[in-house]
């Protein structure tokens, strides 16, 4: 084994169960998160093969994708969604898996409640049948999304056969300016390296700007790793990480905590360790970003413009043409002149308490534009309670935002929260793909502050010039 190892290499080595000749290495999985959409066929597979869930203590389920965000207790009118939720309830009962159900005070988006409950810890391998599992890498864990066949594999064996990914370091020098947050950093990175810039790689985010991020901001950054094509995104654990994890319900306690911190302190990448690829980003060059197209790499500073066609050729040109046609935008249009109809503040990217605080700070004392419908969807029941305790919901409601129950909601519109054809939305979610938020809907990805400001202005506006009240 090499002397100088990266965080990823240490994690990989520590979780190798077997390296059979001529086969993919077998990796142990410490924590498996499960939700209603990608699991029913996996449980069916177990049943068909007469297999059990190997480690129920390492398997945790919740319902998030399909759940309505109307007040809890409102019946689910979508019969197929209701059936899928029932299937998870039945499967968890049959296989002995812990479920944070619709009526649980701990229900929430799977990537929000894992960290919140202290289930997510440094040094863990974490998987979930959801691409945004990369979120958990913020803790210095190796966390990645898998498909349903692999969900079944992990349920049955607590292991995965995986080819070893390559490593990529993204070094963010300097400091982020006021009004420029983790979401802008993520969009700036994807804009620079592209939506396939990190395919086949595990990213480690490093540098002064990353060290300066809170845990919630780190989660936002790691969450978007998949939008650059990465297998996972990671940040080495440090005092910020430990302070966040300490005291949470499933975090180690007492002597176990001390031992855990000792081992977590050994995880950071060794001085002199080599990465397969390195990218440098200058934090000072970043501004609030707005996506203009149909993937997260199609992005411009809020002070910028939609691209002109003249500068493009080949497949870039045709992709841009298709995107602008879908988005109903003319080449060269100023971003700040793009008017919006809807605002969505939520999703596993930006629905945590700091996100809500940032949005509320912008919304305080203002009114949502009369032509805009805006909603705030907290990531979990715990966040909803905390926000209500701080009075954030009052600020939103007074400003004319809707204040909803927790879930994935309009990030992917599997529940009734969707855009109508042609509606344009400023969204704090992670994907602006065609139809993602509803057929014909036009999504622009932004930070929570930028979304709140757009709700009030009725169009995109530079939050760095905002008149806070």
């Amino acid at each position, binding site marked *: 084994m090499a002397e100088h190892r990266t965080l990823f290499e240490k994690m990989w080595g520590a979780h190798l169960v077997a390296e059979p000749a001529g086969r993919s290495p077998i990796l142990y999985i410490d924590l498996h998160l499960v939700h209603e959409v990608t699991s029913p066929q996996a449980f069916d597979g177990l049943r068909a093969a007469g297999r059990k869930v190997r480690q129920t203590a390492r398997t945790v389920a919740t319902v998030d994708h399909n759940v309505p965000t109307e007040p809890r207790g409102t019946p689910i009118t979508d019969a197929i969604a209701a059936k899928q939720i029932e299937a998870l309830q039945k499967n968890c009962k049959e296989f002995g898996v812990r479920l944070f159900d619709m009526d649980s005070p701990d229900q929430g988006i799977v990537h929000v409640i894992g960290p919140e409950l202290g289930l997510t810890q440094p040094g863990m391998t974490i998987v979930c049948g959801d691409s945004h599992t990369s979120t958990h890498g913020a803790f210095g864990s190796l966390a990645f999304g898998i498909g349903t066949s692999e969900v079944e594999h992990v349920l049955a064996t607590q292991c995965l056969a995986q080819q070893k990914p390559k490593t990529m370091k993204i070094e963010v020098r300097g400091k982020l300016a006021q009004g420029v947050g983790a979401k802008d950093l993520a969009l700036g990175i994807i804009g620079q390296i592209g939506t396939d810039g990190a395919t086949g790689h595990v990213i480690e985010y490093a540098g002064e700007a990353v060290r300066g991020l809170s845990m919630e901001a780190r989660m936002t950054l790691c969450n978007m790793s998949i939008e650059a094509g990465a*297998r996972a995104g990671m940040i080495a654990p440090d005092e910020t990480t430990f302070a966040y994890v300490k005291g949470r319900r*499933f975090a180690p306690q007492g002597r176990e905590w001390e031992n855990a911190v000792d081992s977590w302190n050994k995880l950071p990448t060794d001085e002199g360790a080599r990465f397969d690829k390195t990218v440098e980003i200058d934090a000072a060059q970043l501004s609030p970003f707005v996506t203009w197209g149909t993937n997260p790499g199609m992005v411009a500073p809020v002070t910028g413009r939609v691209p002109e066609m003249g500068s493009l050729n080949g497949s870039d040109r045709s992709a841009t043409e298709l995107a602008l046609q879908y988005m109903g935008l003319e080449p060269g249009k100023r971003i700040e002149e793009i008017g919006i109809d809807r605002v969505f503040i939520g999703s596993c990217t930006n629905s945590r308490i700091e996100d809500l605080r940032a949005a509320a700070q912008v919304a305080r004392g203002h009114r949502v534009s009369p032509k805009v419908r805006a909603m705030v969807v907290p990531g979990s029941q715990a966040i909803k309670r905390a926000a209500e305790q701080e009075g954030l919901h009052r600020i939103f409601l007074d400003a004319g935002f809707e204040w909803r129950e927790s879930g994935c909601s309009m990030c992917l519109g599997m529940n009734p929260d969707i855009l109508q054809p042609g509606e344009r939305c400023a969204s704090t979610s992670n994907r602006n*793909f065609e139809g993602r938020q509803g057929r014909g809907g036009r999504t622009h990805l932004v930070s929570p502050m930028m979304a709140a400001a757009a709700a009030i202005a009725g169009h995109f506006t530079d939050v760095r010039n905002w008149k806070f009240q």
Partner: protein
Amino acid sequence: MKPFSAHRGLVAPMERVNVDTDQIIPKQFLKRIERTGFGQFLFYDWRFGADGKKNSDFVLDQQRYQGASILVAGKNFGCGSSREHAVWALTDFGFRAVISSSFADIFANNSTKNGFLTVRLSDDEVSEIMRRASEIEGYQITVDLQQSEVSDDRGFRAKFYLDEFVRHCLLNGLDDIGLTLQHEAEIAAYEARHTHAPGLSSL
């Protein structure tokens, strides 16, 4: 899993880059709890108008591409959501393989679990197949996993690389859960060394 050895079939060209899994199978169809029946919803929002009527311009609905079993598409195919439903929709529709210059990791992984081949060729080779599939009526190619080679009967020939183990599983239709369980002793030994991750024992 259905083994994949070699397949010859009609090629449908999709001249788009970054085809994401939200397009391959839109979210409204992810609520089914079965693995089957997704083919009818493949590329739904591109294939059907908002009124539910078929858009006959869409490549897969053009007469000449009826029965296509090999898709050729631009780079970064299958990006985005981890939904395996995307692969289930492609296979249920009748596709056996997709050719592109790059694939998103999770999509590629999901494909191998379903006997569906992701064939990675160079940009130039992909463009050439795309051109032939557009220009030549009834254009067919052979994807031979045994030889790791794509060829047509007009002289096109290109090698592709797939991880040796993945190739072995596909050729033999192996169930990889069964393969992992052959390592029961090692898994049990690992678990004995790592009794429980800190804290999780209290779950």
